[in-house]
């Protein structure tokens, strides 16, 4: 299951793309290609094991809440 903080956007700030790209709603930025595989739990990677941003949120008690998911604009 993909990270609840992952969204796919074509625009944020000054950045604009033709194809929707992986966007971290916690870090408020488009993510690197390699990190997008962690966000999407691909190739055996897992956001709740390998992503320091997600784990930091989990430590703060906010990991994976519906409130966060809603704020992100939803997953693809």
């Amino acid at each position, binding site marked *: 299951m993909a990270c609840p903080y992952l969204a796919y956007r074509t625009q944020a700030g000054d*950045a604009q793309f033709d194809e929707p790209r992986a966007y971290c709603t916690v870090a408020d930025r*488009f993510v690197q290609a390699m990190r997008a595989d962690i966000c999407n739990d691909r190739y055996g990677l897992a956001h709740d094991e390998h992503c320091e941003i997600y784990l930091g949120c989990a430590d703060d008690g906010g990991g994976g809440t519906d409130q966060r998911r809603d704020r992100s604009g939803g997953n693809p």
Partner: protein
Amino acid sequence: MSYEAFLADEPVIVTAALTGGVHGKEANPNLPETPEEIGQAAAAVEDAGASVVHLHARRPNGERSFETDRFQEIDDAVRRHADDVIVQHSTGGTGAPADVRHLPLRTDPPPEMASLDMGPLNRYDHLTSENSRALIDSLHAEMVDRGIKPELEVFNDGHLNELYGLCERRDLADPVYATLIFGPGTLSRPRPRNLLNAIDSLPDDAAFNTIGFGRHQLPFATMGILFGGHVRVGLEDNVYYRRGELAESNAQLVERVVRVARELGREVASPSQARDLLGLRE
């Protein structure tokens, strides 16, 4: 290979790492991601003096792909746009399972070269790209079967030991071609003495290629030229032209290193010369 190669006027092979698999257009919008963009970039860097293009594949949205079909699309675009450039596929892939790591080797025709990471390196805070010896041997075996020249990527001094281990375990065709990589994290610290030490530590008659990540790209390429090695530049390794100024293209980075080489008295190898130097099949 050493300073003697510089004195002997051996031409320098310039490899352009066009796209990579870590960052993308979010870091520099000029970084090519689609097959068509990569094909056009390959032609531009070849015109600028590169004889090898190091390729990764991406999905339409810029995310990583390891699929043979995607590499095939890219190779087809490169051959459509460029003249004679040597195609080198990456077999790197943090987190990707072993069977997936083999897929870039299976295009038709196979790439003339492919990268082979010599050992583990850390990524982010919770991830390690393992590159076990078993995987290295397995990738090397398939490269031999398909006539692909391995480019041995040495990310730190420990990987030099791994390179020797690989040479003991497997029969590597001459010349052994090692890429010495300098930068942050698990990489060798980017200091000139560390490059010299790495060169001195290579097997006799090995050829070497030099990569400096980020701001170290130009100084390490310059040292690589002077010390008789070959060089890799490109947006995979460095998205800036100078501090605070994004590079306009891969070709811009190649043009600069070609100017440096010529000012230092070293000509740049054509693809044909590069094939001779690396022992590739014509």
